[in-house]
């Protein structure tokens, strides 16, 4: 803990270059983050953002290039050196220890901790420290019991408690509700304005960048492709800097849904235990019509995952019924085939693939045991699997070294493309999708969303669960909010307000 006086520091990199063997991850990147500014770092996956940040924080030794802190050249050989200079990083995933309380987490992460901790004294010191902070947080509950937004605030508080006043925030709002994101970034913004803090934020979300950042730097393929004041740039210009001139798949225009469209998926009074076994999910009534996308919003951990698992047959239900086109549906292979139900779960490599089997085999999972007319076969033809997969790989632009590579060797975007190819081929009456674009880059996201829209326009009923509200607003015809295991709010897309949805997500109603 440094004293009561804290002051933001400015950081600069000059000609930062990082090579891993023959591969250049970062090529001569110079950025300047003045003291007290809020700087955004943009770029697609693999653009070199995290390499740059890791070089700055001492995790990597750059091949060449220098760092300046407050105008003076410094050598940062390890994360320890970086923290000694007051540079800190808040990671995308939480680094707090879940079973410890907030206070315990703060105290134990200090450089010097006394052998026996005098909790009365520490609590007094923490209370005095929290007085000066714009965040209010309960420090006496276990971190596991905090909401995601509170955890994120605690991560930031931890860095400040450790006396760091240059913070790298790595996609800090990816797990927060819009309301929480506004609040956290607003408070951080306030601290930079007051000159207490300098922030370098890695982000994908343009609206956040526009609302909070002063300047941006854009990387593409390890090179600096743009920099400037946020006030001078439009979203279109930022996107152009990020992806260059490659074409972006455009969303089909939305066909008007037919009012008399058949209800394909019907869920009634469904109850199932969640993964802790202590709470249960309870879906009273949900219907999805042919030709519409119903989006389910919610903060992760509110039962969406369990709901999807029930629909996918991965989790037993206690009671209630799931009907697909009027037939009871228990997610067996035969039922899914007869009723044309397709599923794109989150983390597709884990939930929708056999990681060590080949790309061809994975793509053929739905069809390998039937012949052209849908009758079961007793001999499986490797040749048919190959040619079927080759066609789909071509059609869905899956980048793979060969059809017989294990699917685990593909990048995240290509695994998702392979799963899409499998699930969207043939007739689709019901499509259940969960977080389809998580962790994917700009062009892959656009393409996957376009495919989902295409399936909808072709008459599929689509149930889309996502933690990304922007995605839901872009794709859905109706949005439902799931909170604490139940569907608590519904709005047609025309009347949807981010504010109201966010409040329901946070359970304020």
């Amino acid at each position: 803990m440094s004293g009561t006086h804290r002051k933001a520091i400015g950081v600069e990199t000059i000609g930062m270059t990082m090579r891993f063997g023959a591969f250049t991850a970062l090529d001569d990147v110079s950025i300047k983050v003045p003291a007290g500014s809020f700087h955004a770092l943009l770029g697609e996956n693999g653009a070199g953002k995290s390499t740059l940040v890791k070089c700055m924080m001492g995790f990597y030794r750059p091949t060449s290039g220098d760092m300046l802190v407050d105008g003076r050249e410094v050598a940062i050989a390890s994360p320890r050196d970086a923290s000694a200079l007051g540079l800190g990083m808040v990671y995308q995933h939480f680094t707090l220890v879940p079973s410890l309380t907030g206070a315990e987490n703060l105290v134990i992460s200090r450089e010097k901790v006394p052998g026996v901790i005098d909790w009365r004294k520490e609590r007094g010191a923490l209370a005095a420290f929290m007085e000066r902070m714009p965040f209010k947080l309960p420090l006496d509950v276990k971190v596991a019991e905090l909401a995601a937004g509170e955890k994120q605030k605690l991560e930031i508080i931890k860095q400040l408690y450790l006396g760091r006043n240059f913070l790298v925030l790595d996609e800090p709002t990816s797990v927060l509700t819009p309301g929480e994101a506004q609040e956290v970034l607003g408070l951080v913004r306030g601290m930079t304005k007051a000159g207490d803090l300098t922030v370098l934020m890695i982000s994908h979300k343009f609206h956040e960048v526009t609302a909070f950042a002063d300047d941006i730097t854009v990387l593409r393929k390890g090179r600096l492709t743009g920099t400037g004041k946020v006030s001078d740039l439009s979203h279109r210009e930022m996107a152009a800097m990020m992806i260059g001139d490659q074409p972006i798949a455009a969303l089909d225009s939305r066909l008007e849904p037919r009012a008399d469209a058949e209800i394909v998926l019907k869920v009634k009074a469904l109850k199932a235990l969640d993964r802790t076994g202590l709470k249960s999910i309870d879906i009273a009534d949900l219907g999805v019509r042919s030709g519409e996308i119903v989006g389910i919003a919610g903060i992760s951990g509110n039962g969406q995952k369990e709901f999807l698992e029930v629909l996918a047959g991965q989790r037993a239900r206690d009671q209630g019924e799931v009907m697909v086109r009027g037939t009871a549906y228990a997610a067996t292979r035969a039922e899914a085939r007869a009723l044309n139900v397709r599923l794109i779960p989150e983390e597709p490599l884990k939930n929708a693939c056999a990681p060590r089997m080949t790309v061809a085999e994975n793509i053929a999972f739905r069809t390998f045991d039937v012949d052209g007319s849908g009758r079961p076969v007793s001999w499986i033809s490797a040749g048919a699997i190959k040619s079927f997969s080759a066609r789909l790989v071509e059609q869905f632009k899956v980048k793979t070294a060969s059809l017989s590579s294990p699917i685990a060797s593909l990048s995240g975007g290509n695994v998702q493309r392979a799963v899409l190819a499998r699930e969207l081929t043939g007739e689709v009456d019901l499509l259940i999708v969960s977080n389809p674009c998580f962790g994917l880059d700009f062009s892959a996201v656009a393409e996957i969303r376009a495919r989902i829209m295409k399936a909808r326009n072709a008459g599929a009923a689509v149930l889309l669960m996502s933690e990304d509200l922007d995605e839901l607003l872009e794709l859905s015809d109706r949005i439902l909010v799931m909170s604490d295991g139940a569907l608590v709010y519904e709005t047609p897309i025309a009347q949807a307000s981010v504010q109201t949805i966010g409040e329901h997500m946070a359970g304020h109603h």
Partner: protein
Amino acid sequence: METTDIGLWGVPLAMLGGAIRVSTPFIFVSLGEAITERSGRINLGLEGTLVFGAMSAYAVAVVTGSPWLGLLAAAFAGLCFGLFHGWICKFPKVNDIAIGIALMLFGSGLAFFFGKPFIQPSAPDLPAIPFGAWSSIPQVQAALNVNVLFLIGAALAVFLWWAFRNTRVGLIVRVVGDSADAARAMGLNPNTVRLLATGAGGALAGIGGAYLSLYYPGSWTERISSGQGLMAVALVIFARWNPLGCFAAALLFGGAGALGPALQSVGVTQGYYLFYAAPYILTLVIMIATSSPSRTLAGAPGELSITK
């Protein structure tokens, strides 16, 4: 010794005495295992450590004539076993459970090998404190004759409970056990912390073994441990990794173990063998009752896993 007939009162009294007598090795092994598991590793080898500790304590006590030196020897032997387990487990793709099973067999085998010459001679016992001296009833005196190790174990349970919250070392063990990533981010080396935690756990298990051979039953035989080391692992889970819970659960197991002999002593002649099985049945019941196909165990250290 003249016996006074106190009728059926003898059963609860014998169970109380038995609980105190039988529970002591459970207390030490489970506290040791609690430290190890809190650091994110399971050491199933404590059964072997217990047996080897019993043998080395007995052997050293026979040779030197001092039960305390025997106790030290057992703790040292346990420490070595624990450190060995911790050292092997630091290598990638080594499974702590498999190593534990190997060390369990290794420890017992080694103890039988070195222990052969010590089956005959008799060693001095660890001292006990006669808390029952006020009573003239011999059964009460027998039940309240409490060994010092039991008292040390009780104090240790309280100390560990306090230390997990209030000391740097305690917090570090919990951090490492719950999130190795967070520990690394703090500049801690999880392997080192786990090595030391496994060593400490082994030393405590060794002390538990010394109690077996130097107090109750009080001699070295190859059948000295009837699975106490293994059951202590189950007990830690039952106690939710809480040292005070370990102490209470050890007493419960001890009491259950004393049921058979107590019934026998009041003249139940039929079926008391079944009650000898009480601790084992209790183990099974507890494991079944605390398991669930859809529920994760509350309080389990996040790094404990059998899938590594």
